[in-house]
């Protein structure tokens, strides 16, 4: 099981969802992605969108001026 860091800071919605899904497709089922996203619209939308797609949101950590979203690929 791998953990991969994906930097999506500075990438607006919904482009960040597309990028996150592409990164998810490269991961194996069970792998974990640590996705860096901005405050505001991205943190409001991206976890809900990925969760709705069946991915497992493990945790959301607030860092200096961005968030790290930890997601396990389930599908």
């Amino acid at each position, binding site marked *: 099981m791998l953990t991969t860091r994906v930097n999506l800071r500075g990438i*607006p*919605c*919904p*482009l960040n*969802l*597309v990028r996150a*899904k592409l990164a998810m497709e490269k991961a194996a089922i069970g792998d974990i992605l640590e996705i860096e996203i901005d405050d505001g619209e991205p943190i*409001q*939308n*991206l*976890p*809900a*969108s990925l*969760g*709705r797609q069946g991915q497992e949101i493990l945790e959301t950590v607030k860092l200096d001026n961005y968030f790290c979203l930890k997601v396990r690929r389930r599908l």
Partner: protein
Amino acid sequence: MNEHDARLLPPTFSPWTPTNPVCKQIAVLMSGGVDSSVTAHLLKSAGWDVLGITMKIPVACGVGNRGCCGADAAFVCNELNIPHYFIDVTEAFHDVIIQPFRDAYSQGRTPNPCVDCNTFLKFSLVWDRLQEEFGITQLATGHYAKVIHDGQATYLRRASDKDKDQSYFLYGIPSHRLPSLALPLGDLTKHQVRAIAAEMKLSVAEKAESMELCFAGEQDYRVALEKEAANHPGDMTDMQGRKIGVHKGIANYTLGQRRGLGFAGGKPLYVGRIDAASNIVALGTREEVSTRVVQAVQRNTLLPERLTWDTRLLGKIRSYGDPRPCRLTDLTPNGMTVEFEQAQFAPCPGQRLVLYDEQENVVAGGTIQN
């Protein structure tokens, strides 16, 4: 509309690098549904340089069963190997679509946000921006209607599949842009479109059809209004003004509505009048809420030579159903009045009156006022 911006996001995958001349370049507005996806495929197969465009609008992603802002459209473009961009129209969408939608209900009218989105965003703001940014002059959508070129004339015509026909929603296109609009699904049925998507193995081939307002998600449109002032209870009367009950707030009713009125038995009653100023909802029989005369404002005319007193016209006052015979009785610089041969059930102020000629071409349309 010029005060609003339509901001292009960076290319979703690869940038737009057309190889064809401008006359064979076209932008396809893609929602992420099967119709616009097949539209893009058909145009690419016909040799066009196709650019996929998805509007970013103000929706809460991940709410209910709703997907996020057309991300599916981006992946379809990737499958079709065509470039894709998101265009951010959230501010304009709020000001031009959502706020007028709320205002209309609070005033007892029944808005049609889909017509306004086509007219003011897709066929104006977005098209202008695409022309500025990419030099693209031609636009396609996945609507079921036809654009017919006949010599120097261009017509917007009903789709072959009358049950799917969406020409009603397109009447607001500026007439100078109609010749540059492409509607490749106009001769197809939904079944055929899904078959094409399945044959192409598009990821959206089996995607369910959205029947809800795009900005209200999969929930009832009234959710978008639940905090509006027009939810205050008030008197429910008959058409003569006699109180017969209490209503839940005028935003919960639309003209012609029968269900949810709280009256069972006897002759069926329908909402016949909504008076926002006095907060009264009046109910009447089918005959009482029907009328032959329909007046519309904010007219857009596509065939001025056919908007005449002696032309046999066919009119629609709602998106579904067949056009019905009528004749023009008044024409003002921005409005029109028609008289139908037979009384029409509950024309709703805010909905649209769209007129067709006998060849099923859109002649003109406007917003119902009476």
